[in-house]
């Protein structure tokens, strides 16, 4: 009897030990300070909600999330990633918003066989030639929202478009993405200085060019400045303004009525009618007291994807099994349909949103229609995995 009891105790201890070994450590590297620090807050809160809804245990495993601020600086991000990989021994890194940061982290993560799951950044390199079984994107390839708008305007038969974007790589990529799909006439193309304040000159030029539509990619403060000044010049009704990565629920409160009547493409909006999304928007608002943005939604999706894959593979230690489980994407995305393409980038819908003023005086984005169904990025064919 004594012997049996002892054996049982040993077995239990061994089981407990095994369970203890099956914990998951996740590094969340995101932008929490600087002018764009608000985005990181959304990413962190979205992920935290996803973990909380799994009872604090993603995939039923004890979960530790280590948050690091990248300050939107690739060198800082690289340092944080090295620390997470070497000292904290994380199995997964996520949270990254910006592509320059993602590119800095991708190499050490992939080299050390740490899964890097980007909730926002989707650089073309990682979608194409440099794709890796250790890299997953849960939002988009960066060009996609631009390409989606190009396709939409093409389909609508809009004849003349004016384009404006910031003068750096992402700005040029954005307009290239737009032009990949839009075949009409481009009557003007302006690259503004990074962090430009005053757009009066560009706006006068746009007015004089008399396009049928304006397409804008100006992120952060630039987009707020531009949209306000465009409305102040009384052009919003004259030349409709279409944009991506410019007006979202984070910048909208700072733009206010000036954004009313403008259109955006996005992969998500708070009013999407699927069940997972209704639940997400409600519990997010209840927990954090503010409206989630697409950044929060993407990060929440990432946590839920991890939950499903960890459950299926029984942890992240068997890398092959974990990668295969991730690829299945067995979770209900707040975006509606979601699956992974051959390059580990999503196949999903893009929606056309419009900013409207509601009866209670608040300004919100509403989903007008689905602009693209199950869209794939332009680079997956280059990916050999």
């Amino acid at each position: 009897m004594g012997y049996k009891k002892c054996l049982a105790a040993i077995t239990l201890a061994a089981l407990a030990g095994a369970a203890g070994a099956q914990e998951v450590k996740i590094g969340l590297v995101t932008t929490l300070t600087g002018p764009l620090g608000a985005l990181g807050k959304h990413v962190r809160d979205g992920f935290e909600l996803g973990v909380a809804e799994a009872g604090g245990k993603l995939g039923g495993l004890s979960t530790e999330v280590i948050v690091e601020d990248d300050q939107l600086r690739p060198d800082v991000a690289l340092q944080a990633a090295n620390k997470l990989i070497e000292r904290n021994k994380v199995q997964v890194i996520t949270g990254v918003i910006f592509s320059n940061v993602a590119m800095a982290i991708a190499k050490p993560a992939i080299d050390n066989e740490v899964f890097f799951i980007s909730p926002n950044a989707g650089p073309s390199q990682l979608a194409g030639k440099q794709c890796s079984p250790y890299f997953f994107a849960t939002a988009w390839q960066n060009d996609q929202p631009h390409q989606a708008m190009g396709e939409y305007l093409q389909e609508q038969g809009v004849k003349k478009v004016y384009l404006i974007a910031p003068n750096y790589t992402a700005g040029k990529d954005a307009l290239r993405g737009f032009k990949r799909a839009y075949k009409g006439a481009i009557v003007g193309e302006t690259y503004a200085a990074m962090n430009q304040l005053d757009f009066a000159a560009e706006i006068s030029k746009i007015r004089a060019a008399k396009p049928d539509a304006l397409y804008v990619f100006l992120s952060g403060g630039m987009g707020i400045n531009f949209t306000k000044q465009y409305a102040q010049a009384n052009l919003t009704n004259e030349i409709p303004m279409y944009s991506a990565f410019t007006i979202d629920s984070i910048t909208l409160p700072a733009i206010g009525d000036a954004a009313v009547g403008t259109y955006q493409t996005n992969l998500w909006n708070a009013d999407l009618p699927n069940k997972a999304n209704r639940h997400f928007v409600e519990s997010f608002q209840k927990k954090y007291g503010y409206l989630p943005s697409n950044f929060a939604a993407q990060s929440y999706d990432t946590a839920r994807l991890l939950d499903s894959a960890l459950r299926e593979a029984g942890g992240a230690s068997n890398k092959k099994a974990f990668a295969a489980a991730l690829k299945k994407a067995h979770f209900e995305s707040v975006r509606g349909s979601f699956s992974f393409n051959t390059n580990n980038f999503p196949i999903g819908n893009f929606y056309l949103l419009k900013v409207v003023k509601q009866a209670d005086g608040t300004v919100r984005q509403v989903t007008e229609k689905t602009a693209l169904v199950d869209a794939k990025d332009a680079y997956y064919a280059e990916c050999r995995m």
Partner: protein
Amino acid sequence: MLLFFEQLLNGVQFGMMLFLMAAGLTLVVGIMNLINLAHGALYMVGAFLAVTFSLLTGSYLLAVGLAVACTALIGLAIEFLVLRPLYSRDHLDQVLCTFGLILFLNELTRFIWGATPLRLDIPAWLDYSVSLAGIDYPGYRLIVILASVAVAIGLYFLIGHTRIGMLIRAGASDRKMIIGLGVNIALLYSLIFALGAGLAALAGILAAPIFTVQVGMGDHILILTLVVIVIGGIGSVRGSFAAAIVVGVIDTLGRVMLPSGFGNVIIYLLMAVILFWRPRGLFPSHA
């Protein structure tokens, strides 16, 4: 041709906005001989305070007045607590300290108001467009021009035709002599710094409906402002006024007429050329 005049107006208007910033900074740098990088941070503080006061009071004018006054007081406190020991130190120490102030004020602002950008709307009674030869020009931008011209005239009068202005000019020319004459230079410097802070706040508030009210908003405009005061001649309000218009117009026309990318460097080229030709700026002050 019409487009050209419209762009010229855009340039003058942008220049006027820069002048509001430059006027305060040129006084502080030129007369107090203090490199104050935190001028942009005070511009930000002014804009944030105006947002809060306009929500509290519901009145735009009251909010502008309160925000300018509060920022001037904050400037006074900063001058007294932080900057006073720096007057005798060299410029590098001043740069380091005022750069530290930028970081401190940015983080403090984030702590109080949060990281999300805010907005200050144009009050309804200023929200109109003026039709200029068939083009709707935003009336608010014309108001900004008027406000800047009013500030320029006010400063001209203050510095050129009042007793305090005389002391300011004297302090700029020969600091030791004016102390010897029994003038309280410490008080004079405090007042100049407070005036500079108030002007920075006014610039931030007037810019707020056009630009974004967010943490770090002063950092970008500070660089252009430094270009303006260097071109204008450090310490000269008249020089800043002229240089602001030149920078505004050249920057605007450069952006429109030159290929993308070139337009953004042209004002720095302009600065280099002017400094080569007149190393102390267009209107060197007497100091």
